[in-house]
């Protein structure tokens, strides 16, 4: 399959007073049209910075480097501002974490919905508005036509996030990045909004990067999963491989709270693993998880090899964990049988 997005060794550094913060440290992934990559990781692991790095919207002081950052044949790392602008909102769009503040309070929903289309396409106001109404209906907003005249403060959080989704889809992008699109919303509507997003993504055959804490959702919608820890992807692979045979001790810890992967109800959150993420300021060596890992050994303080359990299922650990199996009760069994079932 042709990759729409290809990322090799993506790094984001933020110079701070106390030294450089290595917030994203060497990410690799590929994404094909129509595919969904879920990025999972606890707060501060660099998920948002990764999405902003792809969008070219990092904070000014942040520095981005990558061996390869290619979107549909375009090298984003060398693209000029002008070219990035023409991609954003047209071929790549993003849905943000905070629906309450991501809409401009001074303009109507209609103004903001049509903006991207008017900027990128040769369409008139009327046509753009018709498209906006069509999308508002698609995201399940009633009385869509009359919403165009409303202002953000007149809408609830759930409605605003639906508007944000409609806005991101206006130009039918090839890639959509959704950064925790439901975290700020009421638990009861989180699942609704996510399902909507996933349905639309399938319908429009877009590639999607979905950042979420909801492992139930990941199990249901992801084609690929990347588990981030302290700025690194410590395990990645197809959703099936990662869920049925998690390799990294951190991933295993996360999944411990899920009795039956795939049947977990939406809204379920990450299992908690005692300990804190180490500071990423200055030089870091060895496995960042070793302070919290119960199978850590001395070698964990040195360079960690990247291993593959099966083709395309990668993890970073000194141990070759493919010999150990993960069980639902949480113990790590030393069986050599790999049944791919929990």
């Amino acid at each position, binding site marked *: 399959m042709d990759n729409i997005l290809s990322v090799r060794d993506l790094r984001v550094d933020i110079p701070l007073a106390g030294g450089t913060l290595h917030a994203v440290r060497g990410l690799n992934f590929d994404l094909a049209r129509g595919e969904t990559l879920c990025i999972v990781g606890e707060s501060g692991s660099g998920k948002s910075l990764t999405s902003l790095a792809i969008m070219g919207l990092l904070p000014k002081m942040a520095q981005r480097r990558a061996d390869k950052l290619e979107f549909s044949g375009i090298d984003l790392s060398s693209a000029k501002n002008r070219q990035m602008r023409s991609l954003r909102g047209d071929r790549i769009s993003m849905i943000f974490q905070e629906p309450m503040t*991501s809409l401009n*309070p*001074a303009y109507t929903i209609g103004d903001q919905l049509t903006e991207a289309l008017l900027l990128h396409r040769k369409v008139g106001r009327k046509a753009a508005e018709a498209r906006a109404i069509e999308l508002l209906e698609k995201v399940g907003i009633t009385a869509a036509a009359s919403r165009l005249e409303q*202002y953000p403060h007149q809408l609830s959080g759930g409605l605003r996030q639906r508007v944000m989704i409609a806005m991101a889809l206006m130009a039918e992008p090839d890639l959509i990045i959704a950064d925790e699109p439901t975290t700020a919303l009421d638990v009861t509507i989180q699942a609704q909004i996510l399902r909507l997003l996933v349905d639309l993504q399938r319908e429009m055959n877009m590639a999607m990067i979905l950042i979420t804490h909801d492992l139930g959702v990941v199990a249901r919608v992801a084609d690929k999963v990347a588990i981030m820890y302290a700025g690194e992807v410590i395990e990645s692979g197809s959703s099936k491989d990662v869920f049925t045979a998690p390799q990294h001790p951190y991933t295993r810890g996360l999944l411990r709270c899920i009795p039956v992967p795939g049947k977990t109800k939406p809204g379920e959150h990450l299992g908690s693993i005692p300990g804190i993420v180490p500071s990423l300021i200055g030089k870091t060596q060895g496995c960042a998880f070793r302070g919290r890992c119960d199978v850590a050994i001395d070698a964990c303080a040195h360079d960690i090899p990247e291993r593959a359990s099966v083709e395309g299922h990668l993890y970073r650990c000194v141990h070759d964990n493919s010999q150990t199996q993960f069980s639902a009760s949480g113990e790590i069994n030393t069986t050599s049988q790999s049944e791919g079932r929990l």
Partner: protein
Amino acid sequence: MIYTLKRLGLAILVALAVSMLSFTLLHLSGDPASAIAGESATDADIAAIRAFYGFDRPLIVQYADWLFSALRGDFGESYYFQLPVAQLIGDRLSITMTLGICGITFAILTAVPLGVAAAVRPNSMIDRVALFISVMGQAMPSFWFGLVLVVIFSIKFRLLPPSGTDGWQNFVMPTVVLGYYAMPAIMRLTRAGMLDVLSADYVRTARAKGASEMRVMFKHALRNAIIPVVSLSAVQMGFMLGGSIVVESIFALHGAGYLAWESIGRNDLPTVQALILIFALFYIVFTFLSDLLNAWLDPRMRVG
């Protein structure tokens, strides 16, 4: 619409309160009859004058009488000039208004771009220059700045007339002095507002849509950042009416500010009262206009 009517009603109440307060204060601050009668007047003279002008009536009656005449455009007769006040202040007022409007325009046109530029590149050269200009503006008294300008542009280079009311040249330096007085506050509020708004999520959303920097700055950011600036400008405009007293006297512009200053010294009550009412009305009109402008800028304020 309801919003507009409410603001308007409130504005009228404020105007009434201001005029009532100033009327009372002026009458309590001294006996107007003895002021008119002069130093050598006898008690009988003063009593006659008091009766003639009606100063012996209850204050509330005098106020009502004055207010109803004022509403008809009749502000009484100046004690000093022996002329109808309305006629006296007509021309003077247009000078002060011209000066005030030029001054606030100058202030906004320099302060807003400078504030935006400073916010876009905080701690840059332009930010420091802006800070310097605003500190200077606050540290320097208007009369001193006015005199410096006169020395440079009138005496040394002979470019602008130092005083008088003959043509637009006479308004250049007063405008700059008066505008510079209001500029620092407007600039710093613009800068702070822009800094705040530029890190807002909706600005990032605009960028994510592929909007150009110009569009992000002016369409998405400035519109939100300018809202407090509009209210501040109305307040500054009020201060400038006061400031114009100083500026008019430096440049011998015979405007309403200058007249107010002189009339207070002369105890010319009808003139002073009329000027206070008119200045208050102007102030209220500016505030009202700025409220309307803000309601247009910020839909959240449009609730009744």
